[in-house]
């Protein structure tokens, strides 16, 4: 209904899908590989192996992709205009970090149709950390007229390993940016395409997954699944440690990482269900981190990177 009313006016701002296209186009011109979203549930674009693993080791790499990100605890049954169980991040990794990366980023805002001089754009301190991935970085949240639109991070560690060279990670919050561009106050009123709204496409999903993760998920089953995935990951990682010779290069570490991602999502589901105490929370996160860190170390060995150097973070 609301969509129809909107369509009669001259639409302003990019459609949601065109925003993805614009950013994809902009960053491919900067030499990025255009990747697809990862096909395992993730809580953030950072968890995609194209970020988590690619930032390890010395090889230069540039990649961009949109990543639907699930945050079960953030679900609001489709009733809150700004909070979503699943939102879309547009993720860019530039490795090594170029000297003009802030300018490049600002150019990308221009590519979306934002006139920089007419807006209050600023970089405010916000260091990013993912305790489950053993990853952290230094950077900012970028504010556009007071709205957080991007997390801008110089990655320092991933999987507990000091990075060398340093990658820059740009994570755009697409729904927010699009709502800004279109001037709508509810995410569900966003035009996704010429004739479909975000609500038409995604509302049912928000309602159902909120209901599921807050009220109906089977915590016991999820705990069991967590254990299973953790076990498979650990077994694979143990196997790598005892594998020698040429088979090492083909050893399945990437599947171990998939199991790690599964654990992370299952942990989020338990958290949303409200069944874990603060102490248990820390313990479960440490278990996921352990798998993530082991995977990262194995991956680095597998690609023949330099021996892992660890330093105390400064």
């Amino acid at each position: 209904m609301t969509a129809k009313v909107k369509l009669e006016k001259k639409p302003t701002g990019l459609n949601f899908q065109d925003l993805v296209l614009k950013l994809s186009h902009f960053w491919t011109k900067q030499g990025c590989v255009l990747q697809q979203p990862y096909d395992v549930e993730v809580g953030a674009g950072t968890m995609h192996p194209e970020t988590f693993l690619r930032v390890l080791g010395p090889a230069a790499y540039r990649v961009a992709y949109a990543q639907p990100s699930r945050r079960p605890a953030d679900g609001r049954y489709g009733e809150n205009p700004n909070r979503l169980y699943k939102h879309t991040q547009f993720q860019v990794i530039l490795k090594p970090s170029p000297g003009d990366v802030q300018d490049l980023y600002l150019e990308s805002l221009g590519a979306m149709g934002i006139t920089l001089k007419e807006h209050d754009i600023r970089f405010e301190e916000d260091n990013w950390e993912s305790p489950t991935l053993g990853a952290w970085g230094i950077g900012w949240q970028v504010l556009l007229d007071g709205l957080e639109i991007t997390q801008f991070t110089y990655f320092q560690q991933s999987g507990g390993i000091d990075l060398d060279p340093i990658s820059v990670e740009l994570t755009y919050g697409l729904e927010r940016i699009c709502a800004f561009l279109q001037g709508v106050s509810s995410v569900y009123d966003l035009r996704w395409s010429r004739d479909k709204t975000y609500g038409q496409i995604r509302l049912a999903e928000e309602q159902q997954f909120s209901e599921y993760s807050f009220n109906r998920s089977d915590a016991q089953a999820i705990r069991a699944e967590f254990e299973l995935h953790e076990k498979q990951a650990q077994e694979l990682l143990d196997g790598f440690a005892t594998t020698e010779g040429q088979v090492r290069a083909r050893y399945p570490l990437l599947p171990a990482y998939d199991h790690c991602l599964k654990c992370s999502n299952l942990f989020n589901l338990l958290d949303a269900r409200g069944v874990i105490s603060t102490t248990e929370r820390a313990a479960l996160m440490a278990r996921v981190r352990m798998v993530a860190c082991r995977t990262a170390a194995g991956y680095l060995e597998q690609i023949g990177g330099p021996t892992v150097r660890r330093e105390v973070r400064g």
Partner: protein
Amino acid sequence: MNRSRQSKRKAAEKEIEVLLEVGCEEIPAGMLPKAEEDLRANLGKLLAAENLSDGVTVETFGAPRRLVAHLRGLREKQADVVHEVTGPPKSVAYDAVGEPTRAALSFAEKQGLALKDLYIVTNPKGEYLAAQQVKRGRTAEQILAEMLPRAIHDLSWPRSMTWTGMDGARFIRPIRWIVAVVNGKPLPFSFAGVTAGDLTLGHRFLGKGPLRVRDFRDYERKLKANGVVVRPAERREKISKELAAHGKRGAYRVHEDAELLKLVTYLNECPSVLEGDFDPSFLALPDEILITVMRGHQKYFAVERRGGEVAPHFLAVINLPKDPKGLVRAGHERVLRARLADAQFFWESDQKCRLADYLPKLERVTYESRLGSYRDKVERVRAMARWLSEQWFNSGLLQAHVAEADRAAELSKCDLATEMVREFTELQGIVGGLYARAQGEPDDVADAIYDHYRPVGLEDPIPRNLTGCAVALGDKFDSIVGCFAVGLLPTGSSDPYALRRAALGIVKIILERKLPVSLSLAVGAAAKALLTNAPKRGVPPEQEAQALAFLLDRAKFVLREREKFSYDEVNAVFRAGVEDLMDAEKRLVALKAIRKSKNFEPLAVSFKRIRNILEKSDFKKEEVRAIQPDLFESGAERELFSAVRAAATKVQAEKRAGKYQEALEVIAGLRKAVDDFFEQVMVMAEKEAVRRNRLALLSEILREFTTIADFSELGGEERK
């Protein structure tokens, strides 16, 4: 010789000016003030080490993209330093006929001088061959080329980063350019892969290309033309003025917030103030929440009507001179609307159940792994709050209500499980109080919940009612005793459970509200609560004593800092023993007053003497011996004894009546008898019985008259 030529040249030397700018990607606003200070200190130290700091002014300025130093009055060159090198003794340097030996020749060679330039000096060891060496001063430029990168390198940051790789430079954010201009000329040096020059950049969006700068004036002028106000003081001034102007125009008052003002000063290179509105329907939310939403996330100033209630406008400081199309305003308004809608959602959804319904959820919120969950803590705080209220009621404070203190304590931590506090943690306590009031809890209980984290500092007010004081004290005693019981003692820089703040809060509440609280009994009650409630943990006496000592130490601090008692007065009273802080304060007031009387200071000196004598003798500290008047040998001895006995009776009576000053006056009246005694009597007499009897008399004096304050602590150093 050439020394005089030097000084003439120095007089003619012109002073030089240095401009240093470290151009960065946005430096966190909160770190800039300290970075300005550190850079100034680093430069000062390095100049001093080169003997170049005389007459030099160093100013530093910080803005998001730059850290700037301006040095003036620097000498162009270090002064030459003349020093003397001593060689071999004359007797070795010259042979019998006065011809130079090999030793003399090789010394001259080593010094790079001809033999004729050497001379003989006479020092205490005899006559020696010597040479004068001049260490040429280096030019300021030479020194600066080493010093400036060092000053940047030596800045310390809470958390530094690298932007290239592990062997790259570390700084707070990537350094992208450096300006170093010495007397109009660029001074090239390299730091973090960047070569210094004379090109700077203006405001990110308002600046036009790289700007070449000659000196600080030129730099400041060009930056201003390119959207950057270099001086923080000027930016702050501009913001303050504009805030005031908006207030005047809108007939409202800007909600005072010095910290926010400082933050926005360092967040913007080109600040201006923009006014926005929000839907008045949001005013149904409590003011505390409105202000937190505006301030916390968005860094907006809230505005208030004359009556103090929040008005539906906000003032945002933006990094642009103006907003001609109103786009920025519209953006900020939209963001605030979403934030307020969130808060409203939390306000409503949190209250779908009652505050007490959150109690079971507290089981999942850990306080400390060995001390259990917040649910456990709540039970302990309840026990303490009940105990305190009971004590107060029994001592005549009739407005102390055990049931209300218990209820407030029970609900005090419930808001930790609400969405509102999860989103705005700084509102803990406040949200609980607001919900309690909205849900019809008595005002007394609601206010107590609201206030129970208070005071959070020396200047913060204490809970406004007695119930709040009981909960606040209960919570804080539990934190201190619990943490001490598991060995979580605060160390120099780390105090994760904010125990210092808790102890300070305890002292402040007791003193300001004038509450009768025995500290040792309260510590004991907290230990008992820890044993009878989860985690059912016993607290060994040493740890109770440690917690008590910690509290007393904080109390001394508060009495000095806030009540302005001097170091020695506080020490004197605490050394005499402190159980009840109200009583300690009364004793301090009396002591401070009596100190001015003429008899008092000399008496204090005598007390110190008595203590010294006793400490050096074989008299054990707590030993009590009967005094035998028949062993007295002199009149002064007998007089002192009778004066002491008479005074002791009076002092005890006055003390019982709480008349400390009167009691101290009686003690001061002993001065003459004490002086006469020391003048006429030799304490350490030959005869042991006589000596012991005299020591017994002195010991009685100390015992009887140092229960209000131990005067032997008085005088000496005023501050430690």
